[in-house]
């Protein structure tokens, strides 16, 4: 009898739970949802809206005053300018752009080489090196690697411009001349090298910090056990350390892919997409150029917004792919406390 009552009570709790959980979940998530809405969904919707208009310096006006709203705006004294709703024509123009394939290729090349060589590759190497030497030395080394990150972007890039400057200047030239290398304008000769290196040197420190703290949190016993089991340092790294920092690795890969996709300020300062026509122009830089910096002073906000919006879509596609491929949902475990 008692058991039956208890069973019913348990069932009742079980039935009641979903509703209560979702309300609680909603309450706890609301601050985050508010922030995400305010700083992601709203801007993305505005971006999408602008990308569907012909907003530019020539047609400057409130982008909401299109179509039937124009008269309302005029009645209220809001400047409508020449803004018109143009449908998908900005997108048609984008995909028909002569440089669209080149910019797409540039973007993928830039993102994945920087990611593989520096933001994940070098970061992992640095983390492994600094955790395999004396602690204090490792700490100092990591601190030094953080310097570029805390240097203002403009100063950092100016330094690189000096390093790669044209002959007879250029720090690189000063070092290479004595060993018999003809002085030259390195930045122009190898723009991608410098674009990737400048971004990578800064980008690597993020992964380096995450990886080295993940490596340091691996219990010493695993490493000792592996040594006794007969593993060399390289085998320990490959068979114990890397698998145990799988999640930080995947996290950094995902996070850095997205930040590289959206980053353009170093390229802007370093090469501004050149030399020549779109040699190092990447997607986000194109959006910037179209919207805010054109040769004839005509800022094509509508067209730039279309580039920006497609980048958002690319970012979302990458996120979904990463989430699926890396099975991030396995990271999210049911809290143990629920099992009580």
């Amino acid at each position: 009898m008692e058991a039956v009552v208890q069973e019913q009570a348990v069932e009742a709790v079980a039935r009641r739970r979903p509703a209560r959980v979702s309300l609680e979940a909603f309450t706890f998530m609301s601050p985050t949802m508010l922030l995400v809405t305010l700083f992601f969904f709203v801007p993305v919707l505005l971006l999408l809206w602008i990308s569907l208009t012909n907003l530019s310096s020539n047609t400057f006006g409130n982008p909401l005053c299109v179509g039937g709203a124009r008269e309302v705006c005029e009645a209220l004294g809001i400047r409508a300018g020449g803004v018109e709703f143009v449908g998908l024509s900005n997108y048609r123009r984008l995909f028909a752009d002569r440089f669209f394939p080149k910019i797409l290729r540039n973007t993928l090349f830039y993102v994945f080489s920087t990611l593989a060589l520096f933001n994940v590759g070098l970061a992992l190497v640095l983390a492994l090196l600094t955790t395999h030497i004396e602690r204090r030395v490792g700490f100092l080394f990591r601190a030094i690697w953080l310097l570029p990150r805390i240097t203002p972007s403009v100063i950092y890039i100016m330094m690189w411009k000096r390093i790669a400057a044209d002959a007879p200047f250029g720090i690189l030239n000063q070092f290479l001349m004595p060993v018999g290398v003809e002085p030259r304008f390195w930045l122009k000769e190898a723009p991608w090298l410098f674009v990737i290196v400048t971004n990578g040197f800064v980008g690597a420190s993020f992964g380096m910090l995450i990886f080295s703290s993940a490596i340091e949190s691996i219990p010493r016993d695993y490493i000792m056990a592996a040594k006794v089991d007969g593993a060399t340092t390289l085998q320990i790294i490959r068979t114990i350390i890397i698998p145990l920092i799988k999640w930080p690795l995947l996290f950094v890969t995902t996070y850095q892919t997205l930040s590289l996709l959206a980053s353009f300020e170093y390229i802007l300062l370093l090469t501004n997409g050149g030399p020549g026509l779109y040699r190092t122009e990447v997607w986000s830089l194109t959006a910037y150029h179209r919207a805010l910096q054109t040769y004839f002073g005509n800022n094509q906000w509508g067209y730039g917004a279309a580039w920006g919006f497609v980048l958002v879509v690319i970012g979302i596609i990458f996120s979904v792919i990463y989430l699926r491929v890396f099975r991030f949902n396995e990271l999210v475990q049911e809290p143990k406390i629920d099992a009580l």
Partner: protein
Amino acid sequence: MRVELRHLSKRWGNVVGVDNISLEVKDGEFVALLGPSGCGKTTTLLMIAGIYKPTSGEILFDGRVVNHIPPKDRNIGMVFQSYALYPHMTVFENIAYPLKLQKVPKEEQRRRVQHVADMMGIGHLLDRKPGQLSGGQQQRVALGRALVKDPKLLLFDEPLSNLDARLRLTMRGEIKRRQMELGITSIYVTHDQVEAMTMADRIAVIKDGKLQAYDTPDELYERPRTLFIAGFIGNPPMNLIKNVEVVVEGERYIARNEAFCLEVPAERGKKVVGQGKVILGIRPEDISLADDGEGVRGEVYVVEPLGRDDLVNVQLPGDTFVHFLADPALRLKPGMPVTLRFNTEKAQFFDPHTERSLLWQ
């Protein structure tokens, strides 16, 4: 394999982990390193494994100095207190790991892992991850991984301290039996003297990084050479009574203080007589209730039931306390007067300054 430590020390700056330890482990012997936590047992073991480099001294395997041989070439199996099972590998992969590193052919790996797993009674768990196993099962996997490569030396670092009392008892017997069957030289670190007493052929008692004694369990128990060993070996611990003087009265040797006068066997008494105030050691099991009323009078202070026995703390005149084991059927209660008989055949005597035994040098 024979293992020899010669003047082995390990220091980190000012911290002394191990201080000049020398001992020899015979082929096939089971030796326990016993000492309170922080005394340098793990450090000693890790030096033998090759993970720590000795600051000074030598480690010899079969007479050959191995100080500069890396762990992977020492052919050692080790079981850690935390088990240190690789969490991303299945039980099979964990046990096969040493074989994989030796590039043993896949088929042979499978056979040897299965053999060891069956021996440890975990043959049905090979597909699980360590996180899905109980403590006892993890322990067996760890032991299996240590055994799979047929090591010449087995090292154990407090392997049972994370198990519950019952399982500890089972595993204690099991480890001992495997070791005897396989005849592998073993060094077993523990802070639990019962474990050391029951399992080891010889026990090295360590304190503050120094070797205190190295002897068979019986010797350590019957003839403790220092005060520390007397207090450390044996459970419940030996009673140590201060300010005892041994005098001769005619033919008889008498140990006395303000609480009692005890006759001591001549062969023990004559070594202590004239040494001034000494420390008398007597184990709780060597004290019993005197049924004839002749003996040391005192009053029950605390009774701790241990199940089979009651551990009774008795206050003697002059603030001396002694523990003894009593039959629970007697129902001793605090405050009850008791008369105790000390079996002085087993009495120990220590110099209070040097803390060394006056009986066994």
